[in-house]
């Protein structure tokens, strides 16, 4: 004991840090990463590698040389963006397209706003949507690459996403599709949409570690289920059932990992519920009536932009007021 430290209370601090929270998100994404690499092989590894490496490198270069501030890559948030961006792309995406996505995600969506904590839009989704608009052909190329395992199972697959089929041919086009199959291995779509179970494992991990609160995710699911349920009850020949809508496309990936991004979602629980309902509604409107078969990304981006308003309207319940 040299000299006594004197500082104001509290004198203890939680062990949870920005870094540990972000690292937990990466851990929660691992099951989905492993499944996608196993089934999509080298091409998926390349997409993941390029995406993560460019996100981290770009953040390093921008914080160090452009902003000349503290370097923030140690907080793992760039890694999350890299992994999420990769999981949102088809495994066949060329490396340079991935790189452009990373430039947009980190360079434009994150850093121009001032970095972690300041950005209005989720960087990974912004990157993905930018690529979807700029390179529609690459972004909807669902040719199945050679995986490390399960090629016999997955080769039977036809080269379109379930939602794409429905968009063209109505609910009849996916008749007889096996839900058990979808739960474990949902072929066709972005790499991260492969296995609902892998994503749900990540969700449970995030909840157990208290990284996220469940309100946003659950309200998205509830809205999608109710909305599609109503249409399905009215016209089952035209519209697909709620379970199909929950398990297909990027709904799970988006609702668990991207809509719950701290920075771009509301602070309060009620704000989160409204945010989730909004995402669910917009997703279903795009799926049923829009030009794209899938709308989760657009829905999250649109709702990201109303977060400041939601934060203004919804506050925590105060004691004695």
């Amino acid at each position: 004991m040299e000299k006594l430290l004197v500082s104001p209370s509290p004198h203890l601090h939680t062990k949870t840090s920005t870094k540990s929270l972000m690292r937990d998100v990466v851990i929660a994404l691992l099951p989905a990463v492993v499944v996608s690499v196993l089934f999509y092989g080298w091409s998926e590894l390349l997409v993941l590698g390029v995406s993560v490496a460019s996100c981290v490198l770009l953040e390093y270069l921008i914080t160090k040389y452009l902003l000349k501030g503290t370097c923030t890559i140690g907080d793992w948030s760039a890694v999350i963006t890299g992994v999420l961006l990769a999981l949102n792309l088809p495994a066949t995406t060329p490396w340079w397209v991935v790189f452009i996505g990373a430039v947009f995600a980190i360079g434009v969506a994150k850093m121009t706003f001032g970095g972690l904590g300041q950005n209005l839009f989720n960087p990974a989704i912004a990157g993905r949507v930018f690529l979807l608009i700029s390179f529609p052909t690459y972004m909807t190329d669902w040719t199945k690459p050679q995986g490390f395992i399960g090629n016999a199972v997955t080769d039977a697959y036809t080269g379109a996403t379930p939602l794409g089929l429905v968009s063209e041919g109505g609910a009849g086009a996916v008749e007889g599709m096996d839900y058990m199959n979808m739960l474990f291995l949902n072929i066709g779509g972005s790499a991260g949409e492969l296995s609902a179970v892998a994503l749900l494992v990540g969700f449970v991990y995030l909840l157990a570690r208290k990284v996220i609160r469940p309100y946003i995710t659950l309200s998205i699911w509830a809205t999608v289920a109710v909305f599609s349920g109503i249409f399905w009850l009215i016209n089952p020949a035209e519209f697909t059932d709620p379970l199909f809508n929950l398990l297909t496309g990027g709904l799970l990936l988006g609702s668990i990992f991207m809509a719950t991004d701290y920075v771009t979602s509301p602070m309060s629980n009620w704000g989160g519920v409204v945010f989730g309902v909004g995402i669910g509604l917009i997703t279903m409107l795009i799926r049923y009536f829009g030009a794209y078969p899938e709308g989760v990304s657009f829905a999250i981006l649109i709702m990201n932009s109303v977060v400041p308003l939601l934060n203004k309207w919804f506050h925590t319940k105060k004691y004695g007021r």
Partner: protein
Amino acid sequence: MLKTFSIGGIHPNDSKISAGCAIEVLPLPSKVYISVAQHLGAPANPVVAVGDKVKAGQVIAEPAGFISAYVHSSVSGTVKSIGPRKDLAGNNMTHIEIDVEGDEWADGIDLSDTLVTAIPEDNKEILDKIKMCGVVGLGGATFPAHVKLCPPPGKKADCLILNGAECEPYLTSDYRIMLERSKEIVVGAAIMKQVLGGCPAVIGIEENKPEAIKVMTAAVAELQASAKGYDGISVMPLKKKYPQGGEKQLIDAVMKRQVKSMGLPIDVGAVVQNVATSLAVYEAVQKNMPLVTNVLTVTGDCLPMENQHNYKFRIGMPLSYIAEHAGGIPEEAAKIISGGPMMGKAIANLDAATVKGSSSLLYLTAAQTVRGVESACIRCGKCAEACPMGLEPFLLQKYARNNMTDELEENAVQDCIECGCCLYSCPANIPLLDIIRIAKGDVIRIIRTRK
């Protein structure tokens, strides 16, 4: 389901390392330094002069106003000096220095440990004794006890809540007195509830102290069976959650009522007193014993088990004397806290004297207490989730940094109870409470001048 408060709260490790250490009486030092500001409110006026002989329990300073308290000598001896001396924060305050000679007590004080269960009938006499004995709240705020026990006209107490939560990590002094002085505490509760007009009394204890719950429940049952005036007293186990012992939180947990902003507990019919205060009330009313002793925990993870203690000390003993007696200050200690690790004060001056409300000497290591480097707010909402007042600390700190006092008031910065849950929880190490505390002071000043 155990009861608890409804908004926010955190679960730090409770680290009650010294829970098993029975209360030991500290030997007398050669000198004590008794501060005239050991209570909330105006410092007391000394009524002795240098050279005076004093006895233990004799009044040496008188209250200087309605919210103030009597101060008594804790030892017998000679007044050596009266003048400024540094308190634990390093600020100068008038202290009365007394050279200890023998251990002679003032007349009329009952020093035996016979339990006196018969409660005096005259409430005025009771309140007088509480006041004359200098009893103040020992749960942290050191508010003069008799003031709280006289509800203002038009207000009535519906419930007396005894705070036995001891929700601060590490502290075990309340726990020990609940185990060792359970009946006295219950008698104190019965006295206070009689003064308040016979409302029920609830002793709230957190579930991590099952022994205390058991012993206190048994004490209540025994007194109810053997003496008069003990009906309507009960023990309520509470869930473990910090800050359960916060006055507003305890009222919410026990009575399901919430005190309005800037209001007082009595507005919702609640009077909250700490269990240690209840013991002091017992001593004052039944034994004529002024508040000159209290129990303090010496603890910390870096302290070997044999050096962990719960001490009964005389007020005015220097902290360094107690630390020395307990086996010295551990090498690894980087910060020493008086009070709990969440709301206690870091000690700047170990030569400072103990006061009525002293509750601990807590040694924290650098690894435990040095804050991480501040980084950007990631808007995780963990601070708001943790705030037991339902405030949004991330927002308040932003407004505070920009001096936006109107927004601060609108968002209830004045309701902050300085519990530290927000700062504790922030993964980005933002000094939320440091900033909010200053803003709160400013806003309260603005509200006051407006009135």
